[in-house]
């Protein structure tokens, strides 16, 4: 399959990436600033998220309402999100709208107004979201797992902590954005019906003369306890397990994600078959992979009636134990087939590709071509996947339960 990729680096350190996708009318563009929640100072958890929200509330000569009206008037499906490492502003639209829309994003990045009279609304919006998360048991379970498993502050919730958000000021936000909303380390990605040279020229004009500084690196602290129970009065108990695996930039991550896919990736996976199909213990059960640049976590999740939660956990742990030495060729072929069609189908979505090329640049410093990724999946074999499983049973298993009663891990969890 023909693939047309572009990349450039501006003098001020901004990386610009592009992928042309034939047959599409749309483009998707995303600006990823290195202003993620990892930079929330202690006691100010939620600062990056509040800052990201306030950036949209007036930029350049537009007030808050005009920013949204200009984007939506052009039919842009826009979003703003704060992850652990980045604050991202994205938009997908019919390609001809792009030239009118780019100056809005440039103003959001370079000239956010950060008005005092919008601060309280933005803070209340962040607090409302935090209250809604209290009612989302699945989200809370995964957040608790990240919090105990990752070394501090990598596991802190990006959406913030209510007690901290209550204390934040508009001056905190201005200080944060001054330090972290910077060109150095920013990734801009575009995919779909693009004119690369025209796009690059526009980005150069809008952002090329933006000068900044480099923010200090984040010091990494200790991890949390191996087990946590979160009391929650509901019918179902939610279970999450995590352990350390190689990050995405490590070539062994392909073997690890293949193993995790066999464990809990598709309907023919071990967990789905044993926990749901065979025993009817739950509606949802899965295994997945979550990566930062320097470390990553394998994770398993299920939610089930309180009375059957211990059995569900026991079966999940037994399936993890059973995995090494038991991988079959057929299972691995199914993983390859799923990966191949997933990669090809991603080429039908401008937003998915804009996300993928930015993610790869952040993690490995270049964009992996579709051909090289397909080839890497083809080269997976049972021996390499088994080698990646040599670390099982996990030495640093973290276990979270959320529900009425705590659960037990037979033999305990190593501290």
């Amino acid at each position, binding site marked *: 399959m023909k693939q047309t990729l572009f990349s450039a680096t501006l003098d001020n350190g901004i990386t610009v990436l592009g992928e042309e996708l*034939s*047959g*599409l*009318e*749309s483009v998707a563009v995303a600006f990823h600033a290195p202003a993620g929640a990892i930079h929330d100072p202690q006691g100010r958890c939620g600062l990056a998220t509040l800052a990201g929200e306030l950036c949209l509330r007036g930029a350049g000569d537009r007030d*808050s*309402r005009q920013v*949204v*009206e200009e984007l*939506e*008037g*052009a*039919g842009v*499906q826009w979003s703003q999100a704060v992850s652990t490492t980045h604050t991202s502003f994205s938009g*997908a*639209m*019919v390609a001809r709208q792009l030239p009118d829309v780019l100056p809005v994003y440039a103003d959001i990045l370079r000239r956010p107004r950060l008005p005092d009279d919008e601060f*309280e*609304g933005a*803070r*209340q*919006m*962040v607090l*409302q979201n935090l*209250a*809604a998360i*209290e*009612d*989302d048991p*699945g989200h809370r379970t995964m957040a608790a797992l990240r919090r105990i498993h990752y070394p501090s502050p990598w596991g802190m919730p990006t959406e913030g902590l209510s007690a901290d958000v209550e204390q934040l000021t508009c001056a905190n936000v201005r200080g944060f954005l001054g330090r972290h909303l910077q060109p150095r380390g920013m990734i801009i990605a575009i995919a779909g019906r693009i004119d690369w040279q025209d796009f690059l020229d526009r980005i150069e004009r809008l952002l090329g003369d933006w000068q900044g500084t480099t923010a200090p690196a984040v010091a990494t602290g200790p991890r949390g306890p191996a087990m946590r129970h979160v009391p*929650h*009065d*509901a*019918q*179902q108990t939610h279970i999450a397990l995590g352990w350390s695996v190689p990050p995405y930039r490590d070539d062994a991550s392909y073997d690890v994600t293949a193993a995790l896919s066999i464990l809990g990736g*598709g*309907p*023919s996976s071990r967990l789905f078959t044993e926990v749901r*199909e*065979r*025993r*009817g*213990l*739950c*509606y949802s059960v899965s295994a997945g992979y979550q990566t930062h640049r320097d470390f990553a976590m394998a994770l398993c999740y299920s*939610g089930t*009636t309180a009375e059957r939660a211990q059995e569900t956990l026991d079966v999940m742990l037994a399936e993890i134990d059973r995995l090494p030495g038991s991988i079959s060729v*057929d299972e691995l*072929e*199914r993983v390859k*087939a*799923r*990966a*191949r*069609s*997933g990669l*090809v*189908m991603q080429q*039908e*979505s401008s937003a998915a590709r804009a996300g993928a090329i930015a993610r790869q640049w952040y993690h490995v410093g270049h964009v992996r071509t579709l051909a090289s990724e397909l080839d890497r999946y083809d080269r997976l074999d049972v021996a390499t996947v088994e080698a990646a499983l040599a670390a099982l049973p996990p030495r640093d298993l973290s276990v979270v339960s959320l529900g009425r009663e705590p659960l037990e891990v037979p033999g305990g969890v190593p501290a």
Partner: protein
Amino acid sequence: MAFLHERLDNGLEVIAETTESALSTSVGFFAMTGARDERDDLWGVSHFLEHMVFKGTADLSGDDINRRFDAMGASVNAFTGEEDTVYYAAVLPRQQHEAVDLLARMMRPALREEDFATEKLVILEEIRMYDDQPPFGADDRCRASFFGRHPLGRSVLGSTESIQALPVEAMRDYHRRRYAPGTVVLAASGAVDFPALVESARRLCGDWEPVPAGDRRVPGVPRAPAVGGVERIVRPAAALAYAVRMAAGPAEPDPDRYAAKLLAVVLGDSSGSRLYWALVDPGDAEQASLHHQDFLDAGLFVTQLSCDAADAESLLERMLGIYAEARNQGIDTREVTQARNKLAGRVVLGGERPRRRLFDVGLEWSHSRTYRSVADTLRIVESLTLDDVQRVLSAWAPDGPAATVLAGPGAEGETSA
């Protein structure tokens, strides 16, 4: 882009929207059956049957089906609604035959007693899962209160009691009546080999016995709720309150259905709408939205609110005030233009995904035997005017008579319902 259509001798319709540039093929069986086709003693059977279809045929076990889909790298799933049950798979074009073959065989499931007993446990977990999360059943209760005895009042999942009481024979009978030519459409989108699709359908579905489809529409669709006023669901542990309010709106065949959707974008889209600026932007509500939902013979304007429990009633009043103000003082041309551009953007971006087109094309054909291309839909959206929106607003007031359900931590003295 082309639309192709064939009708088999037994009445099964096969349709496809083909796109030359597509990299994938999506195929699906659209069964025109759902919660509205159930009776009290069959409540929840459509959705339960959807699960059972994945548990195997006379020749294939459930594990066989899961393994075969994974082996072709398929993205496969199904969903059940009030009016439809849809099974679909997205695959690379060379897997079209394999995917259609498997889906077609699945349409004749074994419905084994032991699978039925195990899957019943999964359905009960699904019911508990939804009951544990917002809006804590307020949406189903509100639809029941709006529609009363009308078939659209029935929730898709059923209740714990109705699922526990359901015998496998009742499901087998329901399947015989509802999964026949005339009630099922085979649809495909993306890179489709249409002659091969028709050939697969003939070979695998050609011997399906036709069953008269019957008219599912019910005379006398309610314009006002069967149960008015505000009902409450108390969940002491809830952090926020969740309100759902349903008022009548244009039905699917009504030409005003698109104008109704545009009106909902103006008044209550999740960003940039009147409700957004009044309630969400200042942080008074976590969510305050309006959307239009249409069925074969009825439509709804659905208002949703989530906020601090102490504010729920006053904010609902404010939302109704915003609707009334729009009706009395009119809507601005600029608002309509912005909403129209948003809708048009959604049509174009959604139109690029074969999987998304499969649902649009398959459901439209199932319901009305009509086909609309992305360009056709775009033309309709772009032709909408301020007058269209104002007409819908005065004919179908979203602040008119409605059913309302409020779920949340509750006030002192209230007990769980």
